[in-house]
């Protein structure tokens, strides 16, 4: 029996999907990319994004039409708002909270019956431990995402995550470290620790669990003692909890990548208050200064929302000034749109779409400038690059630097994929660099 699974959302949803795939494969089911040949059709979605939800409805409408002609089972999971869950119960056969994935085989066996399990309102702590114990089926043989935490208790007003994934729960550090060690020993080169607020890791355990910088330190120590070359990333941290210890630890270990993703969201203190972000620009600036001091080669990524409810021109200009000051390498800039379930969805979305869009372009142009400047500074340098794939035309090999800058170079050697290669940088563009692989190309086999 075959199943087809669609993921609509962020890296956290992709990571969730990897565990759903493991559970389905362990049932003896086979995954297919062709939805028409599948008997089980599933979606892992993010219902905090309206676009994702629109896609879910469009897909289930089609699938339910198919059900008139052939037997099919449909399910949906992910970050689902309670209101959406109620609607989905009418259109999908099975609706479950991601914590309930370990019980999915039982739900499928009971297909046709509305199970108490699928109707239950999930509580955050219910099955999260068994969810984490599922070994995910990673999509890549060299890049892996490891969830270290579930939920969020920051209650940013633009976000519904506390209402879809519940409150922050930290995964036991020993499980995380075991997963990291196993993956690295299998040859994984890029490990990303995932959570809504990774750097508040352990806070929910009130002293009974190590803190985030200690978790990083243990990964760093494993890297040092194993002699393996790999890069460890994390996303997303919250600026409020980005303490000096975290940055100091990153500076101390080569396996902790010198790349920081620090969501700004707005450069105006009043907007930050309205977003309930719990930091001021001045505090954010202190973190950036410390990053620049301790990690001088680090790249800096951010997230920004333009046109949040009530954002004035003056407030936007404060964001623009912040973007100019912090010289980001990349910004995931989004036009504000109210998300169902989030506090801000109750407010008037009063900034015209055209203005939001214009602000987004202005910010992106500014980031483009600073990114280009940084990339130009890399010219002439030889950098280790993790080779990811070939480009669409097959002419270039594509990779990422430690700072996650896209690199391309001419090479027909496909065996480099998933390995570290030294590349001499010869040219720079706004968001990418290009170069030539140097001799003794593949670096890590000796490690």
């Amino acid at each position, binding site marked *: 029996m075959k199943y087809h699974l669609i993921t609509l959302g962020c890296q956290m949803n992709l990571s969730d999907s990897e565990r759903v795939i493991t559970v389905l494969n362990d049932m003896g089911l086979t995954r297919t990319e062709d939805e028409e040949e599948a008997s089980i059709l599933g979606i892992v979605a993010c219902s905090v994004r309206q676009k994702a939800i629109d896609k879910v409805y469009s897909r289930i409408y089609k699938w339910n039409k198919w059900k008139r002609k052939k037997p099919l089972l449909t399910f949906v999971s992910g970050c689902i708002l309670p209101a959406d869950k109620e609607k989905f119960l009418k259109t999908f056969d099975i609706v479950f909270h991601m914590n309930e994935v370990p019980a999915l085989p039982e739900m499928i066996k009971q297909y046709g019956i509305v199970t108490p399990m699928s109707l239950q309102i999930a509580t955050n702590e219910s099955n999260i431990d068994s969810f984490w114990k599922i070994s995910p089926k990673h999509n890549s043989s060299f890049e892996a995402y490891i969830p270290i935490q579930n939920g969020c208790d920051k209650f940013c007003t633009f976000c519904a995550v506390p209402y879809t994934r519940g409150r922050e729960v930290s995964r036991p550090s020993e499980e995380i470290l075991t997963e990291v060690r196993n993956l690295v020993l299998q040859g994984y080169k890029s490990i990303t620790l995932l959570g809504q607020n990774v750097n508040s890791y352990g806070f*929910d355990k009130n002293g009974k669990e190590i803190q985030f910088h200690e978790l990083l330190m243990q990964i760093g120590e494993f890297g040092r003692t194993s002699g393996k070359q790999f890069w460890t990333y994390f996303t997303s941290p919250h600026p409020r909890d980005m*303490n000096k210890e975290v940055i100091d630890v990153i500076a101390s270990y080569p396996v902790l990548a010198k790349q920081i993703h620090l969501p700004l969201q707005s450069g105006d203190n009043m907007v930050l208050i309205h977003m309930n972000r719990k930091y001021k620009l001045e505090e954010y600036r202190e973190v950036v200064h410390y990053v620049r001091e301790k990690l001088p080669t680090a790249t800096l990524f951010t997230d920004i929302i333009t046109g949040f409810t009530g954002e004035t021109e003056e407030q936007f200009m404060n964001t623009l000034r912040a973007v100019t000051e912090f010289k980001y390498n990349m910004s995931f800039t989004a036009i504000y749109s109210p998300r169902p379930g989030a506090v801000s969805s109750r407010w008037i979305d009063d900034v015209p779409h055209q203005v939001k869009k214009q602000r987004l372009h202005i910010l992106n142009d500014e980031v483009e400038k600073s990114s280009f400047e940084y990339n130009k500074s890399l010219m002439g340098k030889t950098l280790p690059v993790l080779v990811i794939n070939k480009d669409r035309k097959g002419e270039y090999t594509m990779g990422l630097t430690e700072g996650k800058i896209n690199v391309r170079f001419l090479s027909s050697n496909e065996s480099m994929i998933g390995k570290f290669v030294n590349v001499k940088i010869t040219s720079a563009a706004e968001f990418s660099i290009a170069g030539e692989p140097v001799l003794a190309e593949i670096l890590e086999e000796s490690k």
Partner: protein
Amino acid sequence: MEQVLTSIQKRIATVLEVRNLTESTYVLRFERVGLEFKPGQYIVVGLPGSREKREYSIYSSAVLPYLEILIKEVDTGDVSKKLKRLIPGETVEIEGPFGYFVLDGHKIATNDFLFIASGTGISPFHSFVASYPQLNYTLLHGVRTQNEGYEKDDYDINHHILCTSREDKGNFHGRVTDYIKKHPVDPLTLCYLCGNSEMVDDAYRILEKQGVPPAHLHAEIYF
């Protein structure tokens, strides 16, 4: 930044008292059930097993054996209505504490504080004052009418200024923002603002113009 306490543990607490302060505003007191918090933090409260829950700042002192929250019943709010109907012996489900609207422990004994509240935004300040008797504070409480000066006897009479916008019966007739315009604030004062968005926005801007640096401005909006 000040470290805070947080916990995701859900607790069931028995209601000890519902104390009506006005027709629409009341204090709900329930068992503490081992919950540790820092004054200024909030908890999520609802009926046991219910999906409908709301965040409320803790109103009571950190040293008392029970918890209190200050609630204004709102027409559109299911939770505030249901909680008001509770009687002693019934239970609530609480989660938390959460939040960072707390005082820096090193500054409590050394700095001057200005607390500016509108309506039930006085709740975290009540907890501050009740928990830290040594605080040197001035509390501006913005309300419409004098009867909304919730439990004003709990504050030092010399440090509590009730600003009433719709009647001339408080200590100051007008909004809290009018008060701070007429009484400029020393930039060294640590200012904490809590309440509705309009008040917080306006007060923040006025204080900034008066030279209070961002590091001395802390705000929590009640949504």
